[in-house]
């Protein structure tokens, strides 16, 4: 009564095996085990054994039967090892960013972000998709991170939160008044600080700003990229040519359109290529082909972008992982002293801008986001941010607000850091409210990633489990936890 096919693998046995093999030889009990049963349901056993029988014949000297085998699994190990991954392959796999999932259901009501979408309050608690062009720009600027769940949905979409609208409005106000918004985004772990930067960048791209983004401050300060002293600087500053070349190319790709429409105001004789005035900045950026000449090109680009006598678009200069940029770096000077991060020329540009020493001609924003997962302790920065927040509360006359003071017995404070953060604004990103959580969960459900009814109860449950609506925790509790 056995089935003719292998039930487990649904493979139909070939016609020759079951009948012809046993009938070719006289049936003997000793060979019975070598015969494939005509009704075997095991595919492996149904295979003819001719090859193995040949091997055990007279040709090689080893006798058949039981053999002593030292090291029981040795051969298997060698066989199963396969090709080891090439250098960098594992990291590339780990760091790859997938922005779409063809298996996810497309959400019919999902609309693309418009130039004003992030700044309008009626979009609060709505999920909006990033347009294709902005996706490319953000990807070029490395705004997406591998830890974010982009790869689960059909196309990248962002939740517009109250904080987003607030930030976009502050940016817009600053640009309208040709002022600079200097702001630090801080908040709990996985609360959406980097996502805030991404939304700010999206807003900037949509409004034709120039966006310069340093995706990880630690890439600049943990001594993993080349550095060299800049001649003629006192105190000595250091350039990081390889990183700067990469940055110039990222800026070029992300802001191609805007740079093509912005023209140089002065000549740059120090560059190897002749760049006369009224050349598109894109051409200037194209001059950087090798790491060797990258820093002068970047300097030229920067001086053009900050030139006050020409028409310039607003600029967004942003950095993620602020703590790494607010401490002595891991680089060493020729005297083997640690180099402060603010002596690295690129970071000095950023910190000067954040501290208010540089003015962008058409205004713009300097944003920095702290990180909670990979961040060294920087007491000065923590204190400064706490002080700025408390000052804001005092200004709003919140009851019991008190500005924290320095610990007089602690020596680890850094005056350069304090100087930079003396007048920044602080935007604290916390949990979302239930309305926003509901919008997000509805989007998840519409994408087929959350297979449950989204009602008041489900929303509150996830909201509570995520510690009062911390977005990353909501994702973890809802999307990333396998329910079996």
């Amino acid at each position: 009564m056995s089935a003719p096919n292998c039930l487990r693998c649904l493979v139909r046995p070939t016609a020759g095996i079951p009948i012809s093999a046993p009938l070719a030889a006289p049936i003997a009990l000793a060979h019975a085990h070598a015969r494939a049963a005509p009704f075997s349901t095991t595919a492996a056993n149904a295979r003819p054994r001719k090859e193995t029988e040949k091997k055990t014949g007279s040709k090689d000297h080893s006798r058949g039967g039981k053999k002593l085998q030292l090291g029981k699994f040795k051969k298997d190990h060698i066989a199963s090892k396969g090709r080891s991954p090439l250098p960098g392959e594992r990291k590339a796999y780990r760091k790859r960013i997938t922005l779409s999932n063809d298996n996810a259901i497309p959400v019919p009501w999902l609309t693309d972000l418009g130039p004003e979408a992030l700044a309008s309050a009626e979009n609060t608690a709505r999920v909006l998709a990033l347009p294709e062009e902005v996706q490319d720009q953000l990807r070029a600027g490395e705004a997406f991170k591998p830890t974010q769940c982009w790869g689960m949905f059909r196309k990248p979409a962002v939740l517009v939160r109250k904080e987003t609208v607030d930030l976009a409005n502050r940016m817009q106000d600053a640009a309208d008044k040709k002022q600079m918004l200097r702001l630090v985004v801080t908040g709990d772990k996985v609360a959406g600080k980097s996502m805030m930067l991404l939304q700010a960048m999206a807003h900037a791209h949509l409004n034709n700003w120039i966006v310069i983004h340093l995706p990880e401050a630690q890439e600049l300060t943990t001594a993993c990229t080349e550095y060299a002293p800049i001649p003629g600087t006192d105190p000595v500053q250091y350039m990081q040519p390889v990183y700067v070349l990469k940055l110039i190319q990222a800026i070029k790709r992300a802001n191609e359109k805007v740079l093509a429409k912005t023209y140089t105001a002065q000549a740059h004789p120090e560059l190897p290529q002749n760049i006369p005035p009224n050349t598109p900045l894109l051409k200037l950026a194209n001059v950087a082909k090798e790491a060797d000449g990258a820093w002068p090109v970047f300097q030229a680009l920067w001086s053009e972008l900050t030139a006050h006598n020409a028409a310039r678009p607003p600029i967004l200069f942003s950095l993620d992982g602020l703590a790494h940029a607010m401490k002595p770096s891991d680089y060493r000077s020729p005297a083997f002293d640690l180099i402060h991060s603010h002596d690295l020329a690129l970071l000095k540009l950023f910190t000067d801008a954040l501290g208010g020493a540089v003015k962008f001609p058409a205004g713009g924003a300097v944003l920095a986001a702290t990180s909670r997962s990979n961040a060294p302790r920087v007491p000065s920065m923590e204190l400064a941010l706490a002080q700025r927040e408390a000052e804001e509360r005092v200004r709003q006359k919140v009851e019991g607000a008190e500005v924290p003071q320095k610990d007089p017995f602690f020596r680890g404070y850094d005056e350069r850091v304090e100087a930079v953060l003396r007048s920044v604004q602080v935007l604290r990103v916390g949990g979302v409210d239930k309305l926003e959580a509901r919008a997000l969960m509805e989007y998840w459900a519409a994408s087929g990633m959350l297979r449950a009814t989204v009602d008041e109860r489900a929303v509150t449950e996830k909201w509570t489990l995520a510690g009062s609506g911390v977005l990353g925790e909501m994702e973890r509790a809802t999307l990333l936890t396998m329910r079996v």
Partner: protein
Amino acid sequence: MMASSSRPRLTSALRGVSRTLNGGQRQPLEQHFQSLQLNSSAVRGRRCLSTESTESNANGDRLSITAAKELEIKSLIKKLTPKYRLAQHARPVPISPSYFSRTPAFNDRYLVLEKLSRAYVNLPVIPAADTERIAWKTLSDLRQSFGEPVKATDYVKCLAIVKRLHQIHPELKPDAVKEALLDFQRDVQAFLNVATPIPIDKFGRALGVGKRKSSSARAFVVEGEGQVLINGKTLADYFGRVHDRESAVWALHATDRIDKYNVWARVEGGGTTGQAEALTLAIAKALLAHEPALKPALRRAGVVTRDPRRVERKKHGRVKARKGPTWVKR
């Protein structure tokens, strides 16, 4: 012995005496014996035919069944000789029919109970569910307390009578019945322990306490919208594992109350799992203070009973609690 001697019904008869006496003269003889009773403290080598040990008589004087009085044969003979002839070999006759059985204490009580149940069979009874809950002695308890090998079948029959007698309407229950039942009650009555209800204070908080492993948690539960603070941190901050977060608020989740209450809790001791499950219990108890009707639902969710398991102690000769040492050849 003094207490037992005061009882008139416990006067005894002597075999020799009873032979010599006719029925009409029995009463005065008993009175004689009463008067002849010696103070037990004065007596050294006494002969007593009680089915009880002397200690239990001295302590539990409420129902001690004495087979026969102590007798001082010689003085008795001296007194009685002028009037009656008393045989030299006279011995007291046990009044208990179970005196020569292996289980006199149990049998005596059994007989008493049977007698009482026959006597009071017509008294009105209340349903068994309405009676005062009393923990009766189990078979092993009974064997232990009487020091006798009581048969299980006898125990069952006896307990049926006990329960029947206990059903007699409490206002009409005779003292004799109450007294007879006392011997079948357990020494520690668990039903007297009534849990004090958790109050809800003027701020609307109910405080529940829960324990698990070596963690203990105190949870203040108020009506709210689903916020949880544990030791000043949010649920996500305090518990890294999603599973722990879920088990902490499981009582609210299982009853669909997660959006109706806020929780403020203190937890200490133990590890994360223990703390999370201690919180489960604490929140469930506090929730019960708000809504007592949720008890069956919470019990089904498994958050009412404290899990009593603790770390098993290490034993000598073992590597851990149970793990045996590695076998070593010599």
